[in-house]
């Protein structure tokens, strides 16, 4: 069953067409990895889905309900779609648990005790129950990203968007974040993941999309796209990625 339907999504920055009419259906429980060279529009596509960027044309439909452009509608939409960023974007003036509680308190209007209990559950889920009172400045990159994931999960999102969640991390910290994302995948959560971790995409995604020139150039199962790509550009992208692998 379709959870999210994207039709004709277009985004232009000045004279540059970043997205040229992207169509995409996301079913409940699907895990879609989005690949592409830098500048191919991966992040822009993700950011247009929850209107962090305003698309120039096209429609986004969530659960059969078309999303308008009024701010009040967009605010409600974003409460249903969780997003995790490359740069974490934690709130530095709040502790880890404060970050996770913030949406519950300010947006959902939970009482303090209820928000705290829920936030503790989410922090425990990402393995950071003991860091609840720590400020982001004293957390490692991997811990920050796990707090950011907990912050998104606390809002009970129907869909999770990951925008290169491990690209800003030291290599030895990538694993702990991918482990958390995989555990969410195993729970059957619907997610879209922009990533350069091809191995992770192969093992965790149910579908892989290769973006080029602002359109979906090729898509299919991880095996089809990553092991037997049909299009020449996909092949050369993958070859470049494998150039220095072991």
């Amino acid at each position, binding site marked *: 069953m379709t959870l999210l339907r994207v039709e004709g999504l277009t985004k232009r920055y000045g004279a540059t067409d970043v997205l040229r009419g992207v169509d995409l259906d996301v079913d409940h429980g699907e895990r879609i990895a989005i690949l592409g060279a830098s500048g191919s529009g991966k992040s822009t596509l993700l950011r247009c889905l929850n209107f*962090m960027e305003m698309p120039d044309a096209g429609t986004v439909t969530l659960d059969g309900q078309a999303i308008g452009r009024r701010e009040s509608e967009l605010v*409600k939409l974003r409460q249903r779609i969780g997003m995790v960023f490359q740069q974490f974007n934690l709130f530095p003036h709040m502790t880890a648990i404060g970050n996770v509680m*913030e949406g519950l308190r*300010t*947006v959902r209007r939970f009482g303090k005790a209820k928000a705290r209990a829920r936030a503790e559950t989410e922090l425990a889920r990402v393995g950071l129950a003991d860091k609840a009172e720590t400020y982001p*400045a004293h957390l490692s990159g991997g811990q920050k990203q796990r707090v950011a994931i907990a912050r998104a999960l606390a809002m009970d999102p129907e869909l999770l968007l990951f925008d290169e969640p491990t690209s800003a991390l030291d290599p030895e910290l990538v694993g702990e974040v991918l482990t958390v994302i995989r555990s969410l995948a195993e729970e059957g959560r619907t997610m879209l993941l922009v990533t350069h971790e091809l191995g992770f995409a192969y093992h965790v995604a149910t579908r892989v999309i290769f973006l080029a020139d602002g359109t979906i150039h090729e898509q299919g199962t991880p095996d089809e796209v990553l092991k037997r790509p049909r299009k020449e550009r996909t092949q050369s992208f993958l070859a470049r990625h494998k150039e220095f692998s072991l």
Partner: protein
Amino acid sequence: MRWDFASVFDNTDALLVGAAGTLRIFAICLVLGLSLGLVVGLGRYARSRWAYVPATIFVEFFRNTPVLVQILWFYFALPILLPFSISPLAAASLGISLNSAAFSAEIYRGGIQSIDRGQWDGARAIGMSWAQAMRRIILPQALKRMTPALTNRAIEIFKMSTLASAVAYVELLQQGKLIASLNFNPIEAYTAVAVIFFVFLWPLVQFTYLLERRLRRDE
């Protein structure tokens, strides 16, 4: 030449009344100036022309005219244009508050602009409205960065309060003038006024250093 502070101490009552007047106008201008400054600063930050243009005109007008002229204008010119008179306190408070609002508006705008775009992303991604993100995420961080600049503003307001003496508002300088003219002791009278200002301001500045250190506990 002999310094004779006895003639000043004899007028302690007058100085106390002056100090009370100074503190009163300081409190009024601090609250009005810094809160109106926030409103104007948000206008300067806004993308909407309807907010940006009036805020910009306000800032440019009050930044580029002297406070003393504004106070005199409000006291002597405004009552001619409008059918009511205005007290010295009101005229001086208006001049100092509007001027402080213009300067602090630029501090607020700069502070808000200095916050990383990612903080807006983080706030909006959990479904916050613009106002919620501003109040809960952006302003608390911006205010922290702005503390030194806003502290300077507060000190400036405190010292600008002496301009109210131009419309005979009873504050420290006005009382100092009075004591000097009655006792022919300008050296002692004005020295006493300067010392009293220092005694008020120095602890205030020390307190703001403490505040800045406390605000840094999340780093």
